[in-house]
């Protein structure tokens, strides 16, 4: 497979190519939203915030998975770089219906008065389109609908009419069998090759195999690695940074590996958070709870577990819980792979123990036995799609006599990195798991952390939150 600088994708059913080596108004970090807004006939997709928090720019991206099945997902087009569309189908609101021939989800929105000003409406319509493709039957409960729409902000309607619309169409699939067939055929007809875009100011690589990816990583140690780009895209759209070297790992198959044994789950670093969420519901319920309120569906469809950990944000939601599960990070470099305990992986504010020529291959997560309690807590202003003020990934093992034989208390939002409350843990180890003891230990948390004040909360508030999360853990786990 010879790499090429030409991105090829289906734009509303028609093959579209962008050759970055030719004169083009676009760069490899032009977002799909910017691309759409530059077309007079594609103005239905709106910009609301350009940072993945409002969903006005929601589009549907269809692609073929490894089993050649059609995967249909709603995504925020403001966070997707154009080359990420390579070999995918982009579907916008203009494609699915017209005022004279409405699509069933559009009809439902009309019937339930789902618009006021209407600016957010195309984004909602596309979220509904993906929802009803993926949940064509009665499984489209209110909970599923709320989850599918929570990435879409509406300032006028108060959402009720839109949720009612979401529930009206539960028995109609979004794509007719013929649409699906045509989309699959269209995608199959697109040539398959890795991308290697070298433009005046930027290099963008989208390798297909792991070896090639590792080689590129060694060649360009300063390159930004992306998969869903939900975090990295903000550097471009909010901070106007020019990303000079980008390695897009989204097409590297080994990163999508998913293995479940009796004792372990192995999650490839490139699995989307939504895929992870669907996988772990029964086996790792605390991780499931984490992901249930992680970002929006549009974000979870793009963002990967590897990306969330690699960014090493002090308020990243998956780090504390993977630490509580005692996960191991598998790193791959030019010579070999190695395993690093998750608890040692993050070394500082946005710093990890990953070497310049390494990348995360996946995560090995032991499935706790039934006597082990693992819980995840998050305090934020808003329940969903909000960055944690304080979060906690906790693990507890008890002796027969209810004394503590193991306790891990990993906190996010309390320090420059995800960190355990080691003094508090020590104070509980070997002690009875009682309210009295927990209340004594709550006073020790202040010795473990010196939190900061910021726009989300003041330091004093964070201290109370940290204490109360421990109490909540006791409430949820004591006999």
């Amino acid at each position, binding site marked *: 497979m010879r790499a090429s600088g030409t991105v090829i994708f289906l734009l509303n059913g028609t093959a579209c190519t962008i050759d970055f080596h030719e004169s083009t108004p676009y760069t490899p970090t032009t977002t799909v939203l910017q691309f759409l807004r530059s077309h007079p006939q594609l103005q239905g997709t709106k910009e609301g915030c350009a940072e993945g928090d409002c969903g006005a720019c929601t589009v549907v991206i269809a692609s073929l998975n490894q089993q050649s099945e059609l995967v249909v997902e709603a995504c925020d087009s403001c966070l997707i770089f154009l080359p990420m569309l390579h070999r995918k189908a982009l579907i916008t609101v203009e494609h699915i219906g017209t005022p004279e021939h409405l699509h069933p989800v559009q009809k439902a929105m009309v019937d339930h*008065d789902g618009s*006021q000003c209407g600016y957010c409406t195309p984004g909602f319509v596309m979220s509904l389109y993906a929802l009803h493709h993926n949940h064509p039957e009665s499984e489209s409960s209110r909970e599923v609908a709320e989850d599918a729409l929570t990435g879409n902000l509406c300032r006028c309607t108060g959402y*009720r009419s839109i949720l009612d619309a979401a529930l009206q169409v539960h028995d109609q699939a979004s794509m007719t069998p013929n649409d699906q067939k045509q989309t699959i055929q269209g995608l199959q007809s697109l040539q398959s090759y890795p991308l290697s875009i070298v433009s005046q100011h930027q290099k963008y690589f989208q390798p297909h195999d792991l070896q090639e990816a590792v080689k590129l990583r060694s060649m360009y140690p300063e390159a930004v690695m992306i998969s869903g780009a939900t975090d990295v895209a903000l550097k471009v759209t909010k901070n106007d940074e020019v990303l000079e070297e980008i390695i897009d790992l989204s097409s590297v198959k080994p990163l999508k590996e998913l293995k479940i044994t009796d004792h372990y789950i192995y999650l490839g670093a490139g699995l989307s958070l939504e895929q992870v969420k669907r996988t772990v519901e029964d086996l790792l319920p605390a991780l499931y709870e984490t992901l249930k309120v992680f970002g929006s569906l549009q974000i979870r469809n793009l963002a990967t577990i590897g990306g969330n950990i690699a960014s090493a944000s002090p308020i990243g939601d998956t780090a504390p819980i993977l630490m509580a599960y005692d996960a191991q990070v598998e790193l791959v470099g030019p010579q070999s792979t190695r395993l690093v305990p998750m608890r040692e992986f993050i070394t500082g504010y946005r710093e990890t123990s990953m070497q310049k020529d390494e990348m995360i291959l996946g995560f090995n997560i032991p499935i706790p036995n039934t006597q082990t309690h693992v819980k995840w807590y998050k305090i934020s202003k808003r329940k969903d799609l909000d960055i944690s003020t304080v979060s906690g990934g906790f693990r507890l093992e008890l002796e027969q006599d209810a004394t503590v034989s193991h306790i891990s208390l990993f906190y996010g939002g309390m320090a420059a990195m995800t960190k355990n409350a080691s003094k508090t843990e020590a104070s509980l180890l070997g002690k009875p798991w009682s309210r009295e003891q927990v209340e004594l230990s709550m006073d020790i948390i202040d010795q473990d952390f010196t939190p900061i004040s910021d726009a989300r909360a003041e330091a004093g508030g964070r201290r109370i939150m940290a204490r109360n999360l421990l109490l909540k853990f006791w409430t949820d786990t004591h006999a």
Partner: protein
Amino acid sequence: MDTKKIKLPHGIPGHNLGQIEREVPADEPPAWPVNDELKHVGKRVKRTDAEAKVTGAAKFTSDIQLPGMLYGRMLRSDYPHAKIRSIDMSAAEKHPGVYAVHIFKNVVGMAQPADDDAAGEYPDIKFAGQPIAGVAALTTEIAEEALDLIKVDYEYLPFVVDLEEAQKPEAPLVFTTNVEQDDAGGGGGGDTGLKTVGNVRGPSTSSFYGGPRGDLEKGFEEADTILEQTYRTQVQTHCSLETHGVVVDWKPDNVTIYASTQNTKNVRDEFAEVFDLPKSQVRVIQEYMGGGFGAKHSLGNFGVMAGYLAKKSGRPIKLMLDRREEHISSGNRPNSIHYLKIGARKDGKLTAIQQRSYGTAGVGLGAGVGRIAQIMYESPNFSTEQYDVFTHAGPGAAWRAPGNVQGCYGLEQAMDELAEKLNLDPIALRDVTDTSEIRKVERHRGAETFKWSRRKLPASDPGLIKKGLGMAQSHWPRIVHIDSTAEVRAFRDGAVEIRSAVQDIGTGTKTVLSQVVAEELGLKPEDITVRIGDTLFPDGPPSGGSIVTGSITPPARNAAYKLKLQLFDQVASKLETDASKLAVDDGQIMSTEDPSKKIAFKEALKEMRTGQISATASRSDDYGGFMVGNAIAYGGLGSVQFAEVSVDTETGFVKVEKIVAVHSCGRPINITQIENQINGGVIQGLGYALYEDRVMDNETGHQMNSNFDQYKMPLSLEIPDIEILIVEDYSGRSSTDAYGIGEPANIATAAAVANAVYNAIGTRIFEIPITPEKVLRALNKV
């Protein structure tokens, strides 16, 4: 003026509905019966433009693309307070792809010195985000590159962004002379002629309801109980999904402005004034706009800049704000520190209300707490002192019941506290002291639906997650904009149109107009083409203050009525009857005496003498006159909201489980749209109560959360079960007797939620938003 006497429905169906006789101008149409007897008015009619919105076909200002169009961007100050020594635009001007540059000589949308003394060459910088200059270029990217090339030499000055700090004697001054602002946010503090001492302007002590009443001292002496409390609210930013912006197309004899505005008429007038053009040469078009909520009445600095850039470059200019600019410069709901002292007798009768407030609209006016304390409860003794405090922050703007939302948050919690002190149920207390008939009906209908009797003593829920119930109520005046005109045209090909410059802010004005015209002409709403949002048509009201429905539906009906009479005249002889004997129903014109004499409405149009007929009507004075001037009608729009919350005492998380919202808006026109708007108002109120908060950095003077990532609004997962009761309330004051609902929907929610939180945890949180942090602090008594 010839008059006639007509009888109109009066009162509340199911409660005290009757009739009232009023003397009205002779050319007014006959009274409509109550909604039950109408075909299209008061019904659930589908939104006229729903299909265009769901398919992406609706073109917003941000979607306008014109041949040769350039993109404008503005340079904004990073510093909150500075003098500009010099500006060097030369590099920006030479940047390839740049077609025009402009430096502001004046900025609009903020308070201005009362006497225009010798100003410097450039306006002083008074907030971080104040625009300085602008460029027009082939693309937004090129324009932004050019902005980086502008060299500004600043003299930095000390600044203050905090409401309390700004009141201290040593605080840096925002203005050194008395100031005024024509287009203040309308929050109640923006009276003219008030003095400024330090950064504090005021107090404003009177409103259209009058000035102070009675004798406070005497009132408090007569009280059995006195409540004294201070309540605080935060700055909230509008966050319309479509940012502010315009496209200005300056042709030699006509300027066309596509504007994301809720006030086409005002944008036209402001543009004409700035550029010294006849109003007739300025056309403003708003086909669709992505939300306004009060912040989009004006041309704005962006509109002025786009005008200059268009004039200089000779090409159309598009200038849309980005999300950060929207947060920091385009308006907000000012914060408040709201002191209340209320005296009451044992039976609940109020003896005195003393109110004092301080709020900041940044560099603007209008940070009062509204008039709700003055009007909602009977109290013989009353005084208010509302102060504007200037800070080096972006100007406030009107927002859904400006001032009153802040005021209601305090007042309705005070009433809740007072009820507890007096050992009265909150509803019983209001029954004693609130004379409004509509609110009484709303309270009791709402209480039944909500099952208010479930309410227990504060903090009596035994679990870790505690439930609580609360209620609050509000008042909003019925405001009428007399300068509201509609034209109805009928064409020989069968088309019927209504035209007005009034715009649809998204609430459904287009649909409402189609219903009113269809009802009058015996047609269906879908038969009526609504052409609005264009100043080529007769002037309409602004979409603010819940003014539109009450202002434009009567002239719309009256124009349709006049047009109908013209048509009757033309067909009477054909039907061998007298025009006065004709009526319309179900697409037919027929004789009331002999139903066999009839002609289809569309057939009648085909036989017209001319290709089209037209009739125009303007808003008549209210039947029986106005309460104040020619704008404030008698009566008010009452609303009562109930909230049920659960509070997690370990995480501090407040979940609103249920809201019952009971509202009136005179004669309701479109039930679905009213419900939709109430839902939206409640959810905005919920964001205000729990999440939204502009956080300023005292070190830099910048907003720390000028985005959607950290500025949080409710999403679909947070919405409670909302049950809406609409109470018809006929007053017989106009040919439609209809009013708006935008403001009332939003006023009481935060107070109802706060009262419910108190009922849940037994500790009152005096400052919104009620965050987990505040709940935990309250419970842990840190």
